[in-house]
């Protein structure tokens, strides 16, 4: 079985001016594609030859894990954006967020802080546990919270390649703009 780069549900210019077309050209067209290609190069002849991506993320190590998890993480990241998505969490998700952080604004601040302070390359995540309780976690490089039995529902890529062409060293500015293209409808469905 070979893995494929999923199509984006929007044009590469659709997230302008918050995330530029040039950034998506590289981030989706080069980085994400390269992770897919490398994963396809690495799995033949291993026990993951017929495994699905989630199994690879949960069980693989080394290069297969790094590339497999980066395929999963990027797909999860790109699919949550929309130029005209739902701008605020609603209903059950809103209630669950308010149960942990009091207000949606407080949650956004805590999540933004997690994204801004992850040192090096990695990801900030909103996850839920088996009981449906929400929390914010940071992971380094390709690491994914599913390894710890948590269910991701929202993520922010803070590898420098996600924002350097648009924002250079100003990671907090990227995180601020991230909220403007996030489609909360997708996040709600995951929840």
């Amino acid at each position, binding site marked *: 079985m070979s893995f494929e780069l999923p199509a984006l549900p929007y044009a590469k210019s659709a997230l302008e001016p918050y995330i530029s077309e040039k950034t998506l050209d590289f981030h989706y067209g080069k980085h994400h594609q390269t992770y897919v290609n490398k994963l396809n190069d690495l799995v033949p002849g291993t026990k993951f030859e017929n495994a699905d991506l989630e199994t690879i993320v949960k069980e693989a190590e080394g290069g297969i894990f790094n590339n497999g998890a980066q395929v999963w993480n990027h797909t999860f990241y790109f699919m949550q954006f929309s130029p005209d998505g739902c701008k605020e969490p609603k209903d059950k998700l809103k209630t669950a967020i308010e149960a942990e952080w009091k207000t949606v604004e407080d949650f956004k601040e805590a999540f933004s802080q997690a994204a801004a302070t992850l040192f090096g390359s990695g990801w900030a995540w909103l996850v839920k546990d088996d009981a449906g309780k929400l929390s914010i976690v940071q992971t380094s*490089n390709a690491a994914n919270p599913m390894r710890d039995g948590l269910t991701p529902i929202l993520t922010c890529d803070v590898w420098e390649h996600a924002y350097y062409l648009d924002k250079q060293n100003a990671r907090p500015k990227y995180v601020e703009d991230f909220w403007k293209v996030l489609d909360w409808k997708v996040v709600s469905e995951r929840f």
Partner: protein
Amino acid sequence: MSFELPKLSYAYDALEPYIDAQTMEIHHSKHHAAYTSKLNGAIEGSELEGKSIEELLANVSNHSTAVRNNGGGFYNHNLYWEIMAPGGASQPEGDLLKAINDSLGSVDKFKEAFANAAATRFGSGWAWLVKQGDSLVVSSTPNQDNPLMDVADVKGTPILGIDVWEHAYYLKYQNKRPDYIDAFWKVINWGEVAKRFKG
């Protein structure tokens, strides 16, 4: 005494076309400056104030994550600016050349091992040429760690290092890290590397 961002001995555009002026300016005046000020903030008013950067790094496992990350960032970038220079790269000579040949086979084999360490460091980090006594090894470290740290897998004195955080090359090379590594060979100040080898 607090740590200070060093001035570069060459202009931001001096390493063009291999490393572009915009990258140099942001790398030095934003990234390196932030590591420097955060390091000072992390040790201010503590017993660590007044210690040399080498002392801080040698016992970094006893200190806060902020000292490890920002102390490493401060030291590593100091080294990086100094082991580069405009005007075309010289070649390793004398004792350094002999040590490279003895420890790593040849200059070409060293370059291959170093470029490979730099290209395959997953995520952010550095690749190093490390002095251990009279011999040399190639290694790489994640994030802002370095071989002076007690937490490093390969310990020793770094005499050459390449920054492979994406901020070091993304504006010019984007996803093509190997092209940046190729260009790096063109701006190495081998005289400075030899000086560090001599110790």
